[in-house]
């Protein structure tokens, strides 16, 4: 039973109004393509931290991190620690991100063209957009399911429901996406940054307030007792958990390093920074946030395990956390949480739409751009691309029913992109003998291994137990690196 009332509705309405006003107010500062895609490269550290944190925390993140807490206890927060370490080291040393920002490029494939040629740039653009869009395709539905459960719209009556009542999720998320699309299309990165800032503040207040209430009312000791009783030592240490172990830790170490180095939405903050030093400081300043990003929703997941148990009727590991929240939060705080989660989702959607549009414009459409094109024409094309991505999200993610395992789906789509792109970036920046053939081989191998695993998993179920998603992921990273080395050395020898 949800406690969502008119006070909560008022808080949510006020938040939405403020976001739209802020997003639309800055659209007049957009003068050209660089303003639209990178805010004129004028972003400073604190705005960058707010934007990066808001972008990388969506409802989908909250759902998976809470599910990890529900299933694996505190061990489920280990990927967050690994990501924080990766981001801190990369930001501190400037590994790859410094040469990338100093090159003054707009996207990763643009840097690759300088070293490996136009073909690799286009192939990288296609892999990035494919991986990114397929990954993002499920965000809307996940966000909608969380919101419907928390506000109590999830329960449906048997038959006799109007079309609008039975499609509440689709209609709510369509309206939300339309709002995000309007300010992103008009203001580009400038609107994204300003709304990200507002959304970071609202999201953080909501996350922190709910967690203080949880620790105050339930207590850390009760949560730890639940983990010990239900999951044993594996709930505290992933190395002794039967489903995790070294492959899990190693896979997430490689995966998170790949995300930090090449995930275009993170890199866009580095490239929008006023210089490489500012970009590095944004990474260092945001690093510990990634521990919070996993541990705070992880605690909510453990609280759901504590309150509902491991096998509550009608509750899955994914829906356990929102179901628990619906009954736990009082009026007022419920509104704050819904506003916080809307903020998290809107900031992620706007940034992702803009980011993938920028790669399509800059790296896939670029070869067909005529020399005489004005900045205004480029601006119009970018706006149309953002709108087209919005339409894709609606059709693919919301109205098209997705089949299969969502977690595996997200992992596979991300690895297809991350394994090859991180190999290309490291080789591009630090290995003088890297060649075009090596880059092409890394793209093919990095994409082929996770796709092959996904197909084999469906056709030969034994593959899941004999190899598993973690070993297949590790193989993708190692395979892409080997392909780069072998391909480059063979071209050099020829």
């Amino acid at each position: 039973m949800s406690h969502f009332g008119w006070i909560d509705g008022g808080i949510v309405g006020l938040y939405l109004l403020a976001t739209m006003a802020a997003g639309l107010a800055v659209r007049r500062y957009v003068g050209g393509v660089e303003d639209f895609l990178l805010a004129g490269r004028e972003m400073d550290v604190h705005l960058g931290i707010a934007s990066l944190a808001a972008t990388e925390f969506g409802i989908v993140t909250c759902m998976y991190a809470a599910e990890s807490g529900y299933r694996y206890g505190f061990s489920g927060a280990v990927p967050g620690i690994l990501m924080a370490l990766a981001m801190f080291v990369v930001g501190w040393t400037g590994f790859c991100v410094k040469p990338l920002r100093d090159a003054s490029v707009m996207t990763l494939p643009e840097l690759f063209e300088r070293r490996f040629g136009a073909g690799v740039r286009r192939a990288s653009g296609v892999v990035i957009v494919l991986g990114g869009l397929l990954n993002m395709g499920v965000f809307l539905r996940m966000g909608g399911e969380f919101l419907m459960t928390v506000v109590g719209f999830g329960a449906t009556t048997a038959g006799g429901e109007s079309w609008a009542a039975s499609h509440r999720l689709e209609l709510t998320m369509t309206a939300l996406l339309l709002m995000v699309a309007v300010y992103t299309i008009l203001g580009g990165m400038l609107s994204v940054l300003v709304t990200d800032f507002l959304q970071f503040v609202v999201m953080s207040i909501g996350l922190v307030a709910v967690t203080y209430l949880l620790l105050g009312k339930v207590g850390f000791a009760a949560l730890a007792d639940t983990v010990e009783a239900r999951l044993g030592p594996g709930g505290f240490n992933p190395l002794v958990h039967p489903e995790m172990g070294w492959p899990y830790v190693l896979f997430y170490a490689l995966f998170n390093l790949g995300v930090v180095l090449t995930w275009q939405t993170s890199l866009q903050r580095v490239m929008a920074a006023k210089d490489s030093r500012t970009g590095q400081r944004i990474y260092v300043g945001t690093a510990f946030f990634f521990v919070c990003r996993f541990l705070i929703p992880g605690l909510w997941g453990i609280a759901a395990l504590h309150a509902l148990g491991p096998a509550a009727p009608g509750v899955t590991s994914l829906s356990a956390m929102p179901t628990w929240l619906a009954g736990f939060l009082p009026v007022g705080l419920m509104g704050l949480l819904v506003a916080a989660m809307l903020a998290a989702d809107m900031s992620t959607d706007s940034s992702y739409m803009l980011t993938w549009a920028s790669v399509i414009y800059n790296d896939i459409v670029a070869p067909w751009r005529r020399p005489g094109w004005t900045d205004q024409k480029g601006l119009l094309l970018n706006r149309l691309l953002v709108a087209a991505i919005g339409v894709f999200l609606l059709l693919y993610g919301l109205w098209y029913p997705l089949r299969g395992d969502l977690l595996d789906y997200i992992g596979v789509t991300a690895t297809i992109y991350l394994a090859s792109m991180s190999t290309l970036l490291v080789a591009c920046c630090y290995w003088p003998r890297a060649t075009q053939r090596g880059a092409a081989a890394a793209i093919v191998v990095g994409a082929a291994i996770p796709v092959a695993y996904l197909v084999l998993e469906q056709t030969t179920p034994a593959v899941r137990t004999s190899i598993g998603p973690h070993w297949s992921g590790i193989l993708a990273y190692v395979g892409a690196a080997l392909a780069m080395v072998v391909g480059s050395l063979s071209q050099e020898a020829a």
Partner: protein
Amino acid sequence: MSLARAFWWLLAWACLVWYSTLTVYVAWKGVRDIRRMLHELRRRS
């Protein structure tokens, strides 16, 4: 309290304290960054 429980207790509270502090600090300083960014863009145009 075992070492593993102590580690996660410390990390959970570190997250809450650090995140609360960061929110206030970034909320304060971020406004200045937005003003400076918009000023630069206005000056350029």
